[in-house]
């Protein structure tokens, strides 16, 4: 999966979780930039991303996600490691 495809899929995950079709992601997007992205929504995002990309994040990986760029990078590296 290319970086663009990862972003496109991740955007669709965010749009579904936040029920907002206009949501745009950049690597710098953080929880502060998205309305409703609290700790509860964060778990929703993680699970929705796991289902979308067919992978599992490790407990430790979940603690180091601070922005969309890190999220996308982690997904990309996990997909490549398969």
């Amino acid at each position, binding site marked *: 999966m290319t970086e663009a495809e990862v972003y496109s899929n991740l955007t669709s*995950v965010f749009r*579904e*979780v936040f*029920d907002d079709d206009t949501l745009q992601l950049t690597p710098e997007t953080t929880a502060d930039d998205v309305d409703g992205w609290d700790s*509860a929504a964060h*778990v*929703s995002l993680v*699970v929705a991303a796991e*289902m979308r990309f067919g992978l599992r994040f490790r*407990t430790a990986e979940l603690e180091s996600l601070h922005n969309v760029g890190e999220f996308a990078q982690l997904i990309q590296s996990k997909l490549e490691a398969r």
Partner: protein
Amino acid sequence: MEQLAWLPAHPDLAVAITAARREADPSAALVKAVRLAGYRRDFTATGRIDKLAARALSEGAEPAAAGLMPYRLAILASHTVDHLAPGIRVAGLARRLALSVHVAPYGQYRQALLGHDPELEAFQPQMVLLALDARDAPLNLPLEASEEAVAEAVRGRVEELRTLWRRARQRFAAQVVQQTLVAADPPVFGSFEGLVAASPTAIVERLNVAIRAAAREEGVLLLDLAWVAARHGQGIGLADPVRWHQAKQLVSHVLAPFYGDLVARIAGAAAGLSRKCLVLDLDNTLWGGVIGDDGIEGIKLGQGSATGEAFLSFQRYAALLGKRGVILAVCSKNDLAVAEAAFTNHPEMALRRADIACFVANWTDKASNLRHIAKTLNIGLDSLVFVDDNPAERDIIRRELPEVGVPELPEDVAGYAERVADAGYFETVSFTADDAARGRAYALNEERRAALEQASDMDGYLRGLGMVMTARSIGAGDLPRATQLINKTNQFNLTTRRYTEAAVEELATNPEALALSVRLSDKFGDNGLISVILARPDPALPRGELLIDTWLMSCRVLGRQVEQATLGVLIEEARRRGIEALVGEYRPSGRNSMVAEHYARLGFTPCASPEGAQPDALFWRLEIGTATVPAHFIQVETSIEQAVMS
């Protein structure tokens, strides 16, 4: 496990939700949300449907207009459950409930019930779900603790739960539901675990056994998550350690739609919305092959072939549902004589002809036949579940009769029973001897119908039935069945007020009130407890008048003059007590129009609504001084005790 596998898949659910969001009219948007809730969905789609419905409701959509009954559920949990509320609400939509869900602060369930929780009190829950987990309040016993020490600790823990249950019931008159515990931690001893009294898994299992026994005694319902885990495994999103460490979730997002449905179906059962009748197709549903082409010798059923055994096994499951009180019917495109002959003559049939309350085999379309079945059995179309192996027939029924429950079936008949079980159509809040006898009662109705066809006139038929009606004060013995009838009767129900067992008991022991259970038997057999009347003084009425708070009757005995005979009992008892007038109330529920003229038919006259009455309720009066008992052919036996104030 595929979640919600009984629901049909939508070709593009995400797009359909987006389209529904553009609906400007709130009422139309709510109807769309209800329809979308009926499709197979994961937690993100479920969350979006929840937002769609929430917005429609906040913009003024009326739940009743979308066929929904409002119901308030409070969840008191020892783990995170906020993320489960959308799944519960959306499953509610699919089960005709507009659920308000209140989640008490995480881990505060004791304080919420024993102390003060103003938000919970203001919410006034009708149902309280106590969602606890195995890590909460551990018994902290050393592994070598004795059998007695474990038993004592388990007893203590369950006593604490009983206290909480009683509090919830006293404070809110709410139905309590207790979730059983899922063993979250892996065994420490392997297979030896069960032989060590104080091992973690053994303790959880023991607690669950004790919880179930206590719940039975206290009238508490179960959300038996332990059995869900045993059947489906924990890999599906139950007690996932990552989610536990990350967010203290026992049930993860992944499982939220199914968990939500487990909760909603219990609420639906408590609100009287469970389905009542299983309608079965025949060819390739109850046996392999086509009876009209293959003949009795040719169909696959019973021992000797794997397929034949699988069909037999599904028949056995259906027969067991019949034995617990689900009405069984047949709807098949077949020649009637040929289809019935299979029931009578095939040696391996587990279902017998007498198990089927309504047998329809003809060449008419199935939608018409399902309407006919509902009408014959005097139940609503929304009480039917239709099981047919043919996807085209399923599709037609879903389109023509959206009220009917139509489960998607797996390709393989070996999975039919499990699919019907997973769908939870027949969730119940009670099981009484009357349920076990229901199948027989409906079969007797067939005999009565035959007698009616032979009789030359209606009066002659009714007189010939030799009906005996017994009306008596509701006592401990008939409290469960009376409560069950109060909570599931929809059509012949004047006010559709639902009460818990505790509330009915309270009325029954109030000397000012009258709580009657009515039974009817005739020459064909006993119909069991078929009617309940609750009457009480009302603050808005003058002294000496009784409000008929509840009058309901099982549609099994429609047209038998039970209402007339019951009114006779009421008049007699009112005279004995010096009551001046009976006030009848009719509250339209959307499903009880058959009794809109009930009081008019019984000689009541319309009157003004008392203060504080529901705006669309209609009121009727009967002056006891001049009242006459309508004519009927029922021999009446009464046994009414006026409760003494203790």
